[in-house]
């Protein structure tokens, strides 16, 4: 993990309060693994408010056109409050603190392709941010990813074209029916799992608590593994403040408060107590 002061290369308004932030940070880009995040200081100046940094998944890495070497981080920011709003106001050339990459990544092993044929990526809204690097890695491991992507309305399904460009199968849902099926994303997922009926499959979910909980329950029903990307308010991301916990069970099956920044953000859905939300 590195503590860098990085420059904004570009910031793009994706609509519906979503922004795509590109940060110059070769070292962090080289280190990052799917599911990991960076803690961003949302303004210039470490002692300027908001004081606490905010956690953001690395959506993608920026590559140098010529050499193809990692050059930067691509971050999807949804403006939901003080810090994310400040981020959305940054201009190219501004420099902010970026701490990371950090956190437990998705578990992708070289041996996977033998055991695994497919992987369902389940995203709700900005949860999509944690799944793009994963999709690319799975493909590299000869695992076929399918995307189930839901939101309130069409405009919420940002960056879906990135996944389409990967040529993978996509299922979209919106609560208002403005794109794909009307309803919530776990419905087509459940349908697919019923039809699929094989265990050469894994679920990866990132989104609102309720959506991940439903995905976890589907995984249980079908006896397959599910990894989720958890959210919690974070004070430090260093395992120091103990602020980011969720209730769950440790390796020994002992009931514990687990730190999302250390034992997560990616956890096996079975280790999470889905009855007590951290918000």
């Amino acid at each position, binding site marked *: *993990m590195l*503590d860098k002061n990085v420059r904004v290369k570009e910031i793009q308004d994706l609509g519906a309060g979503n922004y795509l932030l590109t940060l110059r940070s070769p070292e962090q880009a080289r280190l990052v693994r799917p599911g990991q995040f960076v803690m961003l*200081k949302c303004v210039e100046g*470490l*002692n300027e*408010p*908001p*004081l*606490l*940094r905010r956690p953001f998944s690395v959506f993608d890495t920026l590559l140098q056109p010529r050499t193809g070497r990692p050059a930067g981080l691509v971050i999807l920011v949804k403006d939901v409050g*003080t810090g994310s709003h400040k981020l959305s106001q940054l201009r190219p050339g501004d420099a902010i*603190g970026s*701490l990371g990459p950090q956190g437990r990544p998705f578990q992708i092993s070289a041996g996977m392709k033998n055991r695994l044929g497919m992987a369902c990526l389940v995203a709700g809204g900005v949860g999509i941010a944690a799944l793009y690097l994963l999709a690319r890695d799975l493909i590299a491991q000869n695992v076929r990813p399918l995307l189930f992507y839901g939101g309130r309305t069409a405009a919420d399904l940002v960056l879906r074209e990135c996944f389409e460009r990967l040529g993978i199968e996509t299922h979209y849902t919106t609560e208002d029916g403005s794109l794909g099926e009307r309803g919530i994303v776990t419905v087509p997922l459940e349908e697919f799992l019923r039809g699929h009926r094989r265990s050469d499959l894994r679920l990866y979910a990132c989104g609102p608590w309720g959506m991940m909980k439903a995905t976890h329950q589907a995984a249980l029903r079908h006896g397959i593994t599910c990894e989720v990307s958890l959210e*919690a*308010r974070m*004070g*430090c991301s*260093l*395992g*120091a*403040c*103990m*602020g*980011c*916990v*969720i*209730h769950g069970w440790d390796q020994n099956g002992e*009931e*514990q*408060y687990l730190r999302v920044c250390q034992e997560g953000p990616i956890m096996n859905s079975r280790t999470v107590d889905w009855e*007590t939300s*951290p*918000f």
Partner: protein
Amino acid sequence: MGPKAITTGVRNVPQLAVDIGGVRFKNPVLTASGTFAYGLEFAHLMDLSSIGGIVVKGISMKPIKGNPPPRICETASGMLNAIGWQNIGAVEFITKKLPGLRKYDTNIVVNIVGFDLEDYLEVARFLNDCPGIAALELNISCPNVKKGGFHFNKDPRDAAHVTAQAKKASPRLPLWVKLSPNVTDVREFARACEDAGADALSVINTLVGMAIDVERRRPKLRYVTGGLSGPAIKPIALRMVWEACKVVKIPVIGVGGISTTEDALEFLIAGAKAVQVGTANFYNPAASQQIALGLQDYCGSRRIEDIHEIIGSLSS
């Protein structure tokens, strides 16, 4: 900047070392309990040997699971926390964390917590015989545990009692007592703890605060109230340190909202013999090292040869 470099009398290399309860700190900058974990978590982000000491997360004899989330939220120039003393317990700390920490050239101070008097004494007794510990810091002021701490910081006599008992329980180690700001007169507690045998006082812990999510009409913290920390409380901490310094002879260690060299200087000038950096570690992991360097520059550029020329130098 190793300690030797600092302590030589060479011109323009100011002397930053201070003595607290018979223990030498290479400089007066420490990290505050609960904001620096067990130190090692920060080893790759700063040089742990560059600061005078590390006060580790509050430790109890047995592990404590802590409070349900959400446990923190940000406020204007500060944050609220209600962690509930989650910690790995004394035995795991000694066996898993301390050995790694001891590799660094800095002092390790262990902050101890408990739900009742016996809890404090049990862990104090246990730590008394552990090598590699520079001092104990008695946290009788944590606002975030229902039963815990609180009675100790409502009545100076209770504070004196736990101090005297803890001192007996760990005779080998200097005992620091960390005072609560949630009192009418911090001086009464400062005096009481000094009389009871405290070797130093850490002033202050967090102020009890609260925040509400107006959309859900629910407290932002599951525990409802939490401890307020960060720059917002600095003026209060500074005032209490100044008050405490005027009534006790033992060293007072300033804590509360320190995030820059200037902040640290305010506390030293007010009379603090050392300072602890807390919440700032969260948003600037190298803050304590930067402040230690900053103090050296401040002294150097002003021909101040010894930090003691600054400590308590407030003129009015």
